[in-house]
């Protein structure tokens, strides 16, 4: 089920009423909300509902087994460590089957052809189950956290709702069991629902996804990335900026709606985006972009790899490795690998240059505002450079884009004033202070009910009027 549809609006009304009516009966609430979440997942295509159910049952089994093998003081034992490893292998195996099987078979077939054997195992050729990456992340973090003694196992019905809870099910944010379970288990007060914040998130999320993302995609991004050779340097350059806006509007729009819906149901998800395009460094960018994935990669990949504990060289290696693996998580393609390598490489370079600079130039060489502007310009353009590889269908297309930006001669065909204004306004929105947003929320909740209704209906109408026919799937659905 897609968020910006009438079907979801009706579904959510039912889920909202049922959830608050049943919340006092905890077990009944758990079961009903889990069933509703499975209905949400299987609404368009029920083919992979079994996969979600299997992942939940397997994670529950491993969670219980790992907990039983922990030491009396909650410390790790060899058995618990091995069980955690086995759980990770099973989870990643399931993910790998669907996400990387065809890629590996292709590579294997090419390799055997090169040595004259020509073995071609059958391809799986199935569509990637929606949300598999995200529920796999939840499953892995759940078992690892138990293995680390940071979490007690959940009951099967609790785990089922944690992993399948429909607001985060298909594209995050990635919520830890230690964040979700206490909110799920504690009695919730139906008199204190942060509706101002929730409605603001949902309305702006819809606007970003349905209006902004769709507009820049069809007006500029899709044409220029489809045939870079056919367009001039201005079209290509602005096309890259437009893609930066598209992917932000699309993904942050989705998670805003998810967070808003969860808030209305009495569950607060962690923040997933915090004005990422105002970042002044790559490190800062990753503290603001897809924050729950960054946190996941840090805690379950970067730190287990050694983090910054084993010297400078190892730290750089771990940074690059983490980002490359994060890139490959998006799909088995060279373009994603290059995207990860650019981020990892620049994170390492940035760290090195900062240390070098501070050692040699203790006093600021430039006025602070100018330094900030230069840092912002550099960071934004490194992120945009990486986005070129992320969006392009091949590394060759990405280089065509870069080549066209450097040496393209055709006049601009697609860039319009309206497009430029949209991009600039979206960038400017990153600098809106948080207290202004909070004041607007409070004003909304203080409004008379009739005015609130008018505001909400107007917001829905504006999104529908400005949006295109139909709703394109969210970009992150395919990851």
């Amino acid at each position, binding site marked *: 089920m897609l968020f910006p549809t*009438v079907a979801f*609006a009706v579904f*959510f*009304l039912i889920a*909202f*009423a049922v959830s*608050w*009516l049943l*919340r*006092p009966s905890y077990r009944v609430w758990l079961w009903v909300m889990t069933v509703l979440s499975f209905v949400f997942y299987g609404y368009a295509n029920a083919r992979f509902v079994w996969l979600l159910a299997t992942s939940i049952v397997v994670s529950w089994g491993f969670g219980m087994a790992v907990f039983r093998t922990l030491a009396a003081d909650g410390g790790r034992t060899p058995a618990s460590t091995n069980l955690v490893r086995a759980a990770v292998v099973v989870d990643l195996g399931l993910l790998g089957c669907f996400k990387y099987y065809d890629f590996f078979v*292709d590579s294997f*077939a*090419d390799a055997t*052809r090169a040595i004259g054997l020509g073995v*071609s195992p059958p*391809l799986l*050729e199935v*569509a*990637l189950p929606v949300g598999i990456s995200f529920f796999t992340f939840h499953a892995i973090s759940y078992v690892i956290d138990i293995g680390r003694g940071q979490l007690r196992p959940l009951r099967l019905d609790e785990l089922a709702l944690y992993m399948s809870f429909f607001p985060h099910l298909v594209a995050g944010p990635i919520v830890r069991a230690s964040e979700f379970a206490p909110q799920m288990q504690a*009695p*919730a*007060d*139906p*008199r*204190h*629902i*942060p*509706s*101002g*914040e929730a409605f603001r998130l949902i309305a702006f999320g819809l606007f970003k996804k349905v209006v902004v993302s769709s507009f820049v995609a069809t007006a500029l991004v899709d044409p220029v990335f*489809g*045939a*870079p*050779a*056919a367009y001039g340097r201005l079209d290509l350059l602005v096309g890259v900026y437009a893609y930066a806006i598209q992917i932000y509007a699309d993904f942050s729009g989705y998670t805003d709606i998810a967070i808003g819906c969860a808030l*209305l149901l009495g569950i607060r998800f962690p923040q997933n985006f915090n004005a990422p395009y105002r970042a002044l460094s790559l490190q800062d960018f990753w503290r603001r972009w897809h924050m729950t994935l960054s946190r996941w990669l840090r805690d379950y990949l970067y730190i287990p790899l050694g983090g910054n504990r084993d010297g400078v060289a190892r730290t750089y290696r771990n940074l690059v490795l983490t980002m490359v693996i994060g890139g490959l998580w998006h799909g088995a393609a060279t373009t994603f690998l290059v995207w990860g390598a650019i981020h990892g490489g620049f994170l390492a370079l940035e760290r090195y240059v900062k240390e070098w600079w501070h050692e040699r130039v203790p006093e600021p060489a430039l006025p602070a505002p100018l330094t900030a502007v230069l840092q912002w310009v550099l960071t934004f353009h490194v992120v945009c450079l990486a986005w070129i590889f992320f969006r392009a*269908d*091949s590394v060759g*297309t990405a280089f*065509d884009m870069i080549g066209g930006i450097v040496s393209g001669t055709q006049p601009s065909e697609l860039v319009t004033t309206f497009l430029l204004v949209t991009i600039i306004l979206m960038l400017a929105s990153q600098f809106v202070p948080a207290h202004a947003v*909070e004041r607007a*929320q*409070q004003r*909304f*909740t*203080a409004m008379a*009910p009739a005015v*609130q*209704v*008018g505001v*909400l*209906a107007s917001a*829905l*109408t*504006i999104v*529908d*009027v*400005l949006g295109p*026919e*139909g709703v394109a799937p969210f970009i992150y659905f395919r990851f």
Partner: protein
Amino acid sequence: MHADLDRPSSRPPAVARRRSQARARHGEQPAGRILAAMLVSLSLAALVNADALVQRAESKPLGPARDRSLAIWHPVQDVAHVTQLSRLRDLGDWLVGNEDEGGAGVPVVAGPTTTVPPEVGRPALRTPAAGAPLRVYIGGDSIVRDAGDAFLRIAGDSPLFDITLHYENATGLTRPDFFDWPAALADDMAADRPEVAFVLFGGNDAQGIIAPDGGTYPGPSDPGWKQEYARRVGGVMDALRADDRIVFWIGLPPMREDGFNGRAELMNTIFRDEAGRRPWMTYVDTHPIFGDESGRYVERKPDQKGDLVGLRQKDGIHLSSPGAERLARALLDLIDDEIQTVRATASTTSTTTG
């Protein structure tokens, strides 16, 4: 424990009001009030946008889901018209310059079955030159988008070609209420005056169709459907005719899913038959490019070096970049073959007459 959505308070009104104000200061509201606000605002939004919702329901494939949607939204539309709330949406559309697509209703393309004038021959394609590029048009659904983009990549910079690509995702010839290709093609032909046109349709056409007589036909296996679809295909082919234009109708490639492949083959038969009756038309069979020795769907085929290359996207329908490039090169070869044939004919004629 809170069994009710909005627990009635036994406290004095002033105390209750102060608490309500405090909640508002924190941006909070009780569940009952939120539910009411959502219900009323969604109902209001449905009334204001009723015309758009009906249009969206009408654009769904013919069948029970479409009928159910229309059964829900038509009464809402009636109420919206009585209360004049739909005018607010009209105002919004007018302000942002949205085209009025209302009233498309029944998806029908009327008009008689076209016939080919007996005196029409095959137009002679001229040889392009740097100063006089050949005007090439590529149009159709999202499958032609892949091939068109590849064509632009290969020949976009050439001074010999002036290329126009017009694709519309999720469109075809069965649902002119969703996108009216006959009208769009007429506009495109008038504006661009192409000398070579490549068109590809059918990727979204395996759905119900309504004939001008009101007959509803569920899909390509139905004789009524075939007759009506052939009439539309023939009508488009006739509308594409010009004295200086060769038109290539690109057949659908083999599809991975058996059922869909069968429907695509039925449509290909119609394209081939209709094109065969018109001298300015050429049907392009894509099975040699995308199929195995028997023309069946294959994911990958070897390239010139012998490495296996994926020709199709993950959906088993659209073309990958290498697949699209193969088709684009085949289309360029078709232009070249056509020019060579014209030259050979001219040479034979001049030899005979000279």
